[in-house]
């Protein structure tokens, strides 16, 4: 299966794959990160305050997908059932069974039956303890990880598209387009991002999409200079001139000839963008200008760690989560960059790099 996929790739991609594969640290980081990300994508299956599957009075129920009213299980109110409620729990387990996820708490589940006052230390029930509102830290970390990575991923892709587009147009056409474009981006980069976010926070309830939109308006600025410089250099190269002489329109030349050769410099930037996205979101949450209260955010966990120095597990967990996530990403980024570096490609392929004997 993998071999079939590999044989369909172009030789240069295959060589890049080989170089990446050769870099052990990057490879291991990638697998670890992917595993963590896949687990966090299925966060509802891993950490939830509803059973995954249950049987009650001979009927099958899937509380994960369907909201059953409390009346179904002998309650009085038509509100959604709370499976953590001891009464409901006893009723169901008397005439059936429940399959719970490994962490029987969601990110916003308040555990009312704590033995210690919140924040309570790690125990068999709460593996990483609870925060100062009695919510399970492990569940919040799993959901927070997903949120951070998805946020950073969308932010990176968005900035990449915008940055390459704007930088590419400026660099390829040069002259007046470049001059005016450069001045406009300079003015734009002068706008204070943090103030905008603070002002926004007072006007609307900032949610994930608002934050993403505002950040996207500014995060591409760092890319523009790199991409523009690469395009500016590449447009005078002979193979670009040859493509022009062949009659290719500008957009095709930019896409096929300039972009692939300008991507290396851009790719070295992606890990920075990605980690930058995560840290910015964390920082905003820490300051309280980020996601709405109650969201599973790592920044909020850091803030709780700061406010509850008597509960060191909060700060330690937040620190470990962030540092492991960012280190993994940096290692992956390093491997990617090396894989796209043509000099590495020539050495890695062994035979591939050596010139064929001159049979001219």
């Amino acid at each position, binding site marked *: 299966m993998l071999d079939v996929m590999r044989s369909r790739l*172009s*030789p*240069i991609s295959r060589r890049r794959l080989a170089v990446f594969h050769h870099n052990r640290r990057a490879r291991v980081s990638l697998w670890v990160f992917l595993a963590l990300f896949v687990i966090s994508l299925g966060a509802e299956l891993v950490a939830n305050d509803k059973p995954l599957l249950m049987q009650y009075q001979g009927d099958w129920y899937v509380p994960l997908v369907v909201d059953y009213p409390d009346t179904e299980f002998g309650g009085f109110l038509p509100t959604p059932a709370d499976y953590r409620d001891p009464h409901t729990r006893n009723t169901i387990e008397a005439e059936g069974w429940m399959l719970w996820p490994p962490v029987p708490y969601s990110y916003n589940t308040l555990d009312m039956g704590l033995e210690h006052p919140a924040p309570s230390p790690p125990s068999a029930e709460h593996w990483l303890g609870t925060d100062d509102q009695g919510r399970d830290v492990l569940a919040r970390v799993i959901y927070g990880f997903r949120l951070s990575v998805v946020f950073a991923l969308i932010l990176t892709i968005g900035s990449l598209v915008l940055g390459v587009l704007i930088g590419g147009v400026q660099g390829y056409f040069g002259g007046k387009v470049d001059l005016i474009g450069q001045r406009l981006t300079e003015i734009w980069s002068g706008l204070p991002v943090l103030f905008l976010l603070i002002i926004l926070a007072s006007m609307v309830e900032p949610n994930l999409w608002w934050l993403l939109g505002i950040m996207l308006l500014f995060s591409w600025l760092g890319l523009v200079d790199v991409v523009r410089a690469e395009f500016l250099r590449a447009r005078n*190269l*002979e*193979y670009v*001139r*040859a*493509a*022009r*002489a*062949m*009659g*290719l*329109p500008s957009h*095709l030349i930019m896409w*096929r*000839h300039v972009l*692939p*050769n300008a991507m290396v410099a851009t790719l070295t930037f992606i890990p920075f963008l990605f980690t930058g996205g995560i840290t910015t979101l964390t920082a905003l949450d820490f300051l309280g200008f980020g996601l709405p209260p109650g969201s599973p955010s790592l920044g909020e966990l850091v803030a709780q760690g700061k406010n509850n120095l008597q509960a060191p597990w909060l700060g330690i967990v937040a620190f470990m989560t962030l540092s492991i996530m960012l280190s993994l990403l940096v290692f992956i980024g390093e491997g990617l960059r090396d894989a796209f570096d*043509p000099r590495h490609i*020539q050495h890695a392929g062994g035979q*591939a*790099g050596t*010139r*064929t004997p*001159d*049979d*001219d």
Partner: protein
Amino acid sequence: MTEQPLFQLDQLHIAFDGTAVVEDLSLEVHHGETLALVGESGSGKSVSALGAMGLLPANAAIRGSRRLAGQQLEGLTQRDWQRIRGSRVGFIFQEPMTSLNPLHNIGKQIGEVLRLHQGLTGQSARKRARELLERVQLPRAAELLDTWPHQLSGGQRQRVMIAMAIANHPRLLIADEPTTALDVTVQQEILSLLAELRDEQGMGMLFITHDLNLVRHHADRVCVMHQGRMQESGEVRDVFTQPRSDYTRALLDAEPSGRPAPVASSRLLLQATGLSVDFQRPKKLFQRRPPPFAALQPLDLQVSPGETLGIVGESGSGKSTLAQALLRLVPSQGEIDFDGVRLDQLGQRDMRRQRRRFQVVFQDPFGSLSPRMPVADIISEGLRFHHPELSPATVSQRVAATLQEVGLPEGCAARYPHEFSGGQRQRIAVARAIIMEPELIVLDEPTSALDRSVQAQLVTLLRELQRKRGISYLFISHDLAVVRAMAHRLLVLKDGVVVEHGYCRDVLESPASDYTSALVNAAGLTASSE
């Protein structure tokens, strides 16, 4: 008893990380003579000279005996080497553009050599530097001391390099391709200057070059290298008249020969009338914009189907500008008529459609192919764009046929440009041009970056394609030997002005202008081999 040689290498072996690059090289240079070390690129000629002087990186292993004026060169300390280099041995390198430090003025750079080896400082160093600049026949030597490298031309910079090399009266001068980057007429001046200095100071000279013409006229003895081995050595006259090794014979025969097939048609394919190119100069603050720089004065030219028009000139003569103006890659004035279509009046879109009919091959075989596309994509790109109706199978068929036509091995379609040698890359560039079935190909110095033997093969290929397909060529070159083998008619350009225009043989055999005859003399063409 024979005189002891000035510089002697005995059974020199050089290896990089265990890979031998030079094997069993023995040579000697005597006082007052020039030994030419000849070979094609990669033959190990520069490595030998650098290795003999201990200038190779640490991963090079050198064996064999080396002597300079009786002194053993093995096992010298870094300090000993520093005393030898620059004072008893002078170096001149190929690239005059990069071998001078752009951040120091000329006087300071020469002064540094004098300070290090003779302890001269201040006014005395300056005075000596001026004498040196006068010695290498640079005009206005006193003013030149305060100029910066970028203000000098290539030839002038090379003279400055020579001044630095001879500043400390070296016994041995190593000139590594000293004139390769220069125009032919400047080449001659530099080489006669070197010969004059050699005789005057009784130096020995090790002259590294790939150009047999230069060896013939400027060296006493020659040593031919091929793939790290010495093939032959001896007096220049003997080696040239009676080469003993096969390789030398092949090298001597490699000069492009023959003539293009005669032109059948008298119809005109391309006609340019009053074509000129101006470059706008930058406007200074609060000043009027200076008049534009005329890169190309108005000129007329015609090309018939199946004909080759050679455009000859030195660097800066406007020959590449002319090609780009005809292709409408730079803005120009004047009429360009291509097979009844006025190219200068076409809009962007119509122009792109016309581009299929005239293609271009550039000089640098390493820069003109996109490094991230496989050969098949590079060659078929224009075809796929101009004929989107073709199926992928037809396209790859056409690619295979074209690769075969330009003499590239089968199965190289999936490989990437960096896997090919310079000559093969240039064939790929030719394949990219002919797959579009153009009526005209502009060849912008297609052979300049190639070795002589590869040049001859490319010229043969191009002529063959012309004969089969009836393509017209616009052949731009500074190399008269190649032009003679390619062109029917010639256009000689100097500083953007047409100096001479006529049939190739007439122009080369009886040049009408002084400039053309200077070019012909400098090129040292051997008798036409028809």
